[in-house]
Every structure is written in structure tokens, then in C-alpha cells.
């Protein structure tokens, strides 16, 4: 009976590339959904909502690094720290509206406001990343500084992520201009009333 080559990743670890790309695709999906909601329901994101979007993007950067360079502890660290940062801003907004009778900010989706969903999503992402760290056979892979060609799922996730990020830059610029956003925005600063 022959032993497998030492550089072969076995078990669940061989799925880690796919799971990283799926995670990035999920984050892109969250950002796309929020952006479509913003455009079609004309509900402008508040500053804390924008901070939560930034945190999702920051988590996505960690996963994009994994997709583009192969998984490494530093990339997972980036994603986990970013998820924790997102939990801070979303929990803060949940606390802002926790008093009885407070209608909350924006329309609810499936019974919860977006900032509550964001808190759930950041927690779920942290758990997901922890699980990925446990199964990932990253020690057996090639050096991280060498870029590699991502698979079709990785390319799809990366392009979707880059595109929604560009749209977020533009929409935030149109909404807030070169300044801070008002606490309760009702109109885009750079669009005629």
C-alpha cells in the first residue's frame, strides 16, 4: 500500500479553496442585495450602515487574498478581525434602537432590520472562518507571495466583489460627497432633489 504524496491535501481540506470562494460570493451577495434595496426602495444607508458595508468588504478582502494567493493564517486573520469590527458597528446600531417602541432605521427584511441581519451575518462569518481554519491544509500548499490562477468560482466571486465595491464607492460618493454623511440621510447630496 503506497502513501499519498506529501503535498496532497486530504479530507475536507481539499474543499477549502471552494469554500473560500463561496464565502466571498456570499459577501458579494450581501453587498449586492443591500445595494439593490438602496436603489429600488430609495432607502439610503446611514453612516453606521455604511460602516457595516465597509466591514463586509474588509472580510471579503481576506477571502479574496485566499482566493488569489492560496489560504494563509494572515488572510484568515484579516477576515476574522474584520468580522469582529463589523460586529461592533452592527451591535452598536442594534443597541441604538433597542428601546421599546423604537421603529428602528429603514424597512425590516424578514422581520429584522438590516443592522440586526448584519450582526447575525458577521457572527456567522466568524464561525464559518473558524471552521475553515480548522479544516484548511494550508501548510501543505505553495508559497503565498506567488499569485495563482483562481478557478472559475474564485474568478466569479472576485469579479462580483470588485464590481459591487466600485458601485459602493460611487453610490457613497453621490450620497455623501467628499464629507461625512448625515445621521439620517433622505436624499443623495449630489443628485438633484
Amino acid at each position: 500500500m503506497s502513501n499519498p504524496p506529501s503535498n496532497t491535501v486530504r479530507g475536507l481540506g481539499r474543499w477549502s479553496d471552494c469554500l473560500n470562494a463561496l464565502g466571498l460570493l456570499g459577501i458579494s451577495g450581501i453587498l449586492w442585495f443591500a445595494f439593490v434595496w438602496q436603489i429600488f426602495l430609495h432607502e439610503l444607508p446611514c453612516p453606521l450602515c455604511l460602516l457595516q458595508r465597509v466591514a463586509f468588504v474588509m472580510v471579503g478582502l481576506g477571502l479574496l487574498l485566499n482566493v488569489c494567493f492560496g489560504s494563509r493564517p494572515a488572510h484568515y486573520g484579516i477576515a476574522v478581525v474584520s468580522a469582529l469590527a463589523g460586529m461592533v458597528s452592527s451591535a452598536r446600531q442594534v443597541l441604538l434602537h433597542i428601546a421599546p417602541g423604537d421603529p428602528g432605521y429603514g424597512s425590516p427584511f424578514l422581520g429584522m432590520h438590516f443592522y440586526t441581519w448584519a450582526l447575525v451575518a458577521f457572527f456567522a462569518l466568524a464561525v464559518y472562518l473558524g471552521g475553515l481554519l480548522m479544516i484548511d491544509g494550508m501548510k501543505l500548499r505553495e508559497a503565498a507571495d506567488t499569485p495563482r490562477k483562481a478557478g472559475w468560482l474564485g474568478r466569479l466571486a472576485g469579479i462580483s466583489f470588485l464590481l459591487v465595491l466600485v458601485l459602493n464607492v460611487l453610490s457613497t460618493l453621490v450620497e455623501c460627497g467628499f464629507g461625512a454623511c448625515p445621521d439620517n440621510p433622505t436624499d443623495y447630496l449630489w443628485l438633484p432633489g
Partner: protein
Amino acid sequence: MVIDHWDFSRHHPKFESDVPIGLLLMVMMLPFLTALVSAWYCWRGSRRAAMGWWVVTTLIYVAWCFYHMTDPLKISL
């Protein structure tokens, strides 16, 4: 230009004297822009630059957290 959106003293007496770096950080689209730069470097194969721009994004994020999260919560119990 909407000047009152740049007023640091709205919640924070400690920010009464505006400083240029603070003004720069208060541009809401800035963390999106730095994150886009990071993602672009990552996509183009520059790992160190991508991670460096992620750090810049995180620093701006923390500055925004201080700005938006250090006023008293209006919770009536």
C-alpha cells in the same frame, strides 16, 4: 459643499480644533476607496500592497467608529 457635515464638535468637544488628517478621515467614501485599492492590488497579484491597504482601511474604520459610536446612547429604561 455642506460644511456642517464636517463639524467634529457635533458629538465630540475633543475634536473642536479641526486637523487636516481628521478632515481627510471624515470623508465617508474614503474607506470604500481604500478597500477598492486593496482589492485591485490583490486581483493584480500584489499581496503586500493589498494587505497594506487593508490596514489603512481598518484605521479609517476605527476613526469612523470613534466618531459615530462615542456619543451617549439614547436608551430610556
